[in-house]
Each structure stands twice: as C-alpha cells, then as structure tokens.
C-alpha cells in the first residue's frame, strides 16, 4: 500500500521531496567527505580541521534541510493525522533523528578536539568523530535503501 501511495504521489509533493532528497544527498556527501578526510589525515591538523568543518558547515545544515523536507512531506495531506505505518518510514525517522543525535554528539566531540589541536591534542576526540560519522554514513545508506525499496 505504501509503495502504491509513493508511486502515485500528488504533484505538489514533488518540491518537498526534492528538498528532502537533495538535503539527504548533500548530507551523505558531507559525511562521506568528513569521515574520509578525518580517516586519511594521518595526524595533519590542517586535514583534521577540514574534515571537522566539512561536517559542521556542510553536513549539519544539509541534515536539517533533509529533516525539514521529510517533515514537510509528512505533514502534507494530513499524514501526521493519518500516519503511514510502515517499516520504511520508521527506518527513515530513526536514521534522521537517532542518527542526527549521534551526528551532533560527533560534532561536539570534534569541536572540542579541534580546539585542542593547537595544544597538540584532540586527535582522539576527532577519531571518535570519524567513527560516529561512519556509523551515521551507514545509517544514511540503510535509510536511502528503505526510502527507495519501501519495505512494509
């Protein structure tokens, strides 16, 4: 049923869907870039900063855009009052919200780590940010799969 509903979605859902998908794709790219840059930094403070700032300045805003776009679609046509009760929406919300919390924790740890780089510290905290980013990246892959395949 949900697959049919998605396939015949009204035209006025298209723009919110574009906002949601584009936000998710940019967030995916930012997390991929941030995690890769942190992973290949080999202790370089410059590269660790680049990885962190990519997550903060590109990843966080696009995550918010993805989240807002998703809620915009969900609120259209009264879906909040008549929720689509399915695995794929549950996965989507779980990744957007629980993944979002992990992402923010990673940003906080990374922010402290970046501040400590001048004193030659903080690399362990930035490794934690990288690890959390990889978990978030895996979550985004699962969410993208669920949004496309729409398992009931």
């Amino acid at each position, binding site marked *: 049923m949900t697959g049919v509903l998605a396939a015949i979605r009204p*035209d006025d859902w298209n723009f919110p869907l574009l906002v949601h998908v584009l936000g998710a794709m940019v967030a995916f*790219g930012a997390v991929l*870039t941030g995690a890769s*840059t942190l992973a290949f930094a080999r202790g*370089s403070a410059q*590269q660790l900063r680049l990885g962190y700032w990519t997550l903060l300045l590109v990843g966080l805003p696009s995550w918010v855009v993805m989240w807002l776009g998703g809620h915009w679609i969900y609120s259209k046509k009264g879906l909040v009052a008549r929720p689509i009760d399915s695995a794929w929406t549950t996965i989507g919300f779980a990744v957007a919200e629980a993944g979002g919390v992990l992402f923010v924790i990673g940003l906080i740890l990374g922010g402290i780590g970046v501040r400590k780089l001048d004193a030659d510290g903080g690399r362990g905290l930035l490794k934690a940010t990288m690890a959390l980013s990889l978990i978030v990246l895996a979550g985004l892959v699962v969410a993208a799969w669920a949004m496309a395949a729409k398992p009931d």
Partner: protein
Amino acid sequence: MSLDEWVLAFHVLSAFAFFGGLVLFWVLIVAGRNADTPDDTLRMEPVAKVGNAAVGVGAGGTLLLGIWLALSYGGYDLWDGWIIAAIVLWIASAAVGSRTGVEYIKPLHKARELSEAGQTGPSAELLALNRTQRGVVLHGASSLLALAILVVMIWKPGA
C-alpha cells in the same frame, strides 16, 4: 522484495554515491584554493580517490540500473521523454565531469613533479593550478546537470 525493488534501491543508492562524490569534490576544490605546496596538494589524493570511486560507481549504477528499470518496470519505457532527457543529461554530466577530472589532475602531476625534484616549498604555479577557474566552472556545470537529472527523476515530466 522483488528483484525490481532491489534494483530500484541500488539505483537510488548509486545516485547518493554520485551526488556524494560531487559534494566531496566541492570540498576539495574549496580546500585546494590555499594549497601551494606539494605536500598540501598530495595530502588530498586519498580523499580524491574516495570521490572518484563514489562518482564512478554512482554514475555507472544510476545509468545501468536506470535502464534496467525502464525496461523492466511496468508503465515506463526506455523511449519515454523524461527517461531520454535523463540519459542525455547523464551523458552531458559525464562528459563535463571527465573534463573536470583533467583539470584537477594537473595540480597532482605538478605536485609530484615538484616533490620528486626535492622542491617542497610554496609554488605559485602549483597554487594557480589548484585555483583553476576552468575547473570550478566545469564542476559547477557538472553539478547543475546532476541536479537537473534529479529534478527530472522526481517530476517525471510527461509520465
């Protein structure tokens, strides 16, 4: 889940990889604008390889799996206007993307050349190659073409 649903899921995941790679290269383009030493330039190479893999797998996956879906999915045909438009945009994006790659391989070659010659200090020539205006314009065009494909995929004009 049917085979077509799995193919659709991997088609969408390929699109995420493709866009993810484009975002990665935007970050490298911005970061590279201050890179004037061979070390600063070459340090980005492993990250660029991740981007190359993402764009390659993503571009190939979107096209091949998209064609599969057009042939297999009921209600869609390969010669539908919006599908032809998407394929034309994909070809244009790939062509522009490959030219972008040529622009950004130049600073890597130069950095290697300088490094092998033992010149590790700042180089104005290397900085100019990293700041290529042509590369920025080409990557911008490639990104806009990818965005146009996404718009066509969502609106499906004429479907």
